[in-house]
């Protein structure tokens, strides 16, 4: 019996989430001439700028450098934008939370899934670049959903924690944009990890985004599948982050209404 109810609740919540995703999607492109094309164009343009700048100044010895950049950037954007969106989600839906009995978990989760949809569209840009550089996809591509599951879990965990903390301390919102900028530079997005001094490597190993970005490049750039140990590290980081985020959220969600 309770199973049936849970199933019904889940189905209802899923409909709510998908409605919200479609709302965000509509609002994002409403009244722009190119519309959804921007989801493809944006990473492409970004890639052109970054590769122009960095190949002039640094001259890293990386084959297919623009592809290297776009892969890192799109995956990192998935994390940064979904965590930022999730962070604001509870505050932004305060009017609803105050008035309607609704599963609050929906709001941050929805923001992460919305960014996942965006990411999938920007994969078209990645495909265009791959065609341009004649990099053929291999069977390793089949592991992409697994990677996305890791990243989404990880982002959702961060997003849940941030959304709950932001309710009580608005400082979190300001701080997070700084953290994201720092993180962008701390992750080898447009430089090869080899340029780092040796002592930095153990530190880099603790950066989940380094693992996810490397995983992504390995799948598409090298056409190989990371080993079991790497998969376990990625999974572990995702699961722990999600569990901690969920715990923080669940512990504090009852008090949201008093602070939003």
């Amino acid at each position: 019996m309770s199973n049936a109810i849970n199933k019904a609740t889940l189905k209802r919540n899923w409909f709510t989430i998908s409605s919200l995703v479609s709302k965000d999607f509509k609002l994002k492109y409403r009244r722009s001439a190119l519309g959804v094309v921007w989801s493809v164009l944006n990473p492409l343009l970004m890639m052109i700028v970054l590769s122009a700048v960095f190949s002039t100044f640094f001259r890293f010895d990386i084959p297919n450098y623009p592809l290297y950049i776009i892969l890192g950037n799109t995956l990192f954007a998935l994390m940064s934008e979904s965590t930022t969106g999730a962070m604001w989600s509870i505050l932004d839906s305060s009017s609803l939370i105050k008035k309607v009995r609704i599963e609050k978990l929906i709001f941050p989760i929805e923001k992460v899934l919305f960014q996942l949809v965006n990411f999938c569209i920007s994969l078209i840009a990645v495909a265009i670049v791959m065609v341009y550089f004649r990099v053929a996809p291999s069977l390793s591509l089949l592991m992409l959903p697994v990677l996305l599951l890791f990243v989404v879990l990880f982002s959702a965990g961060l997003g849940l924690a941030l959304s709950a903390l932001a309710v009580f301390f608005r400082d979190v919102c300001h701080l997070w944009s700084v953290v994201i900028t720092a993180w962008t530079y701390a992750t080898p997005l447009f430089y090869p990890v080899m340029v780092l001094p040796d002592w930095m490597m153990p530190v880099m190993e603790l950066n989940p985004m380094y693992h996810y970005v490397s995983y992504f490049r390995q799948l598409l750039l090298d056409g190989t599948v990371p080993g079991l140990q790497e998969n376990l590290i990625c999974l572990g980081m995702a699961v722990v982050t999600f569990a901690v985020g969920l715990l923080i959220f669940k512990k504090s969600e009852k008090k949201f209404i008093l602070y939003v």
Partner: protein
Amino acid sequence: MPEVVNTTPLSGFSTLPDEPERETAISVKNVSMIFNMANEQLNSLKEYAIALARKELRFKEFRALDGITLDIKKGDVFGILGTNGSGKSTLLKIIAGVLEPTKGTCAIHGNIAPLIELGAGFDMELTARENIYLNGALLGYSKKFIQDNFDDIVEFAEIKPFLDMPLKNYSSGMVARIAFAIATVIVPDILIVDEVLSVGDFMFQKKCEERIQSLIKEHNVTVLIVSHNNDQIERLCNKAVWIEKGHMRMLGTAHDVCQTYRVLGGHTGSKKAEERVFSTLTSPVQPDESLIKPLEADSPYAMAARLSSSREEPADTVVVAFGEYEMDGFLGAGLASALDAPVLLTKSDGIPDATSQEIKRLKAQRIILVGKTPYCDAGKFADALQAATEVRCDVQALSADTYEGLSFAVFDYALQRGLWQGPAILTHIGCMGDMISLSPYASERRCPLLIKSPGKPLSEGLLERIAAYGNDRLLVLDSEEGCPDEQLAPMRERGIETVRFCEDDAYRANEVIRAWIEGERGAEGLTRSFIAAPSWQPAYSYTIGPYAARTGALVVLDDPQDLDSVAHAIDLFESRRGRIDLITFVGSRTQFSPLDKTMLAKAASAIDEE
């Protein structure tokens, strides 16, 4: 007057039957809601850390709800009454599951459709169609359900031609219609309605009410309604609770609770006064309706005309005073009594219709206009009157720069003609309650009214006039501070007795003045006719003096808003139970509710001994 809001339970009036056979829909048990109000707003980590380090993290407790227990049965239509900030919405939020109570439990049996605020979750950029789906999803409807009922929603909201227009281009009424349509398209087990019926136009409100009615009647839905509108609760609900400052005051049938709320709710007064009023309200005495005589009008001007029209014969001379200024009214009424003429009120920017019509009816030849200089203009008044009624009257203005001067002008005018008879009344500007209380005596005894200048000792002119008048008494309506005894010493030296009326509040003074007037009347015995007049809207009572004198009535100050005054009136009437012939209620149409009137009638009605 300190504002006292009573929160103790009122019991023993309305009892609800225990209905164990009926299923419980909502069970609220001993629910308390305590908010921690931070002494300062701590909204950032830094502030929080500093406060924590200094151990200054103190919170002030605020009890929004205190020990609320309700048992709402399936099919009940339950009303929640209370003044603003009494905790009604907090209770609804707890029942709707949005808020968790600090203490106690709230169990719900069935699904809830909360109409707490219409349109929460609407996105103004989206079209109506998109919003219907989105809002439906947020309210927990399935996609199929929305699809199946989409047409019903659109039809109820009357938005078919605008379905694909962004919501931001809609009128707020249309948005409210859509929201209401979405929220009520489902047939819930429990429907929560919070003030939603107060938005939108009349047509929409009616439609909403019909929809709620149909849910109640056809689907046996349990409904919870919060409203300021007493009548609406009484019309829709079968049970009601009255909550005040988080405390349950009364639980009972909607009729009983609404009646009590109408008389006591949001009104100020001491606990004792409230108990007095409540016990009268609930006493089983049959009120003698023939005691009640309402004398209502739309404006003070119309009221003056009504009071004047109670005399049938035409009047050669009519006194007209300016109704915007209280002292003009009292001076005019005093002069009118001396002249045995009717008194009417006018406005400084034109003659009200009621006034000009009454002048025409009285076939007045001569008008004495009483008012201060800039606005009191005989020529202008005569012209305006001629324009309105085509009658040209001889208008004489009695005016001065100050109220003291104006009272002298009126005094001298009637003194020359030898019209004053009773003791002079010395008062100050703004002494309205006492003036109203004393006005029956002032009119029947033709007492001159003298007004002293504020903040100054009694002037030479005033002392001279009192001496010249030669009455052996002077009535002083002022405190010891306003008019010290030593200033009155010269009067006493001349053998003039001074009688001072000054009490802590207008109701006490009313009592004292009434007793004094009855003492003066002596052999005539106790008064059997009373005029209930509010001191809150005194403009309606400026001219009751001549009317009271004609009917022999005395004034009881009674403000339904102020329970202390009501308790005073009840005390008076009960002490004379069965010996009262008439209570005339003077005031605007909304001043006294039917209930206020029957309640006083109850206090005055003879109790059938059988």
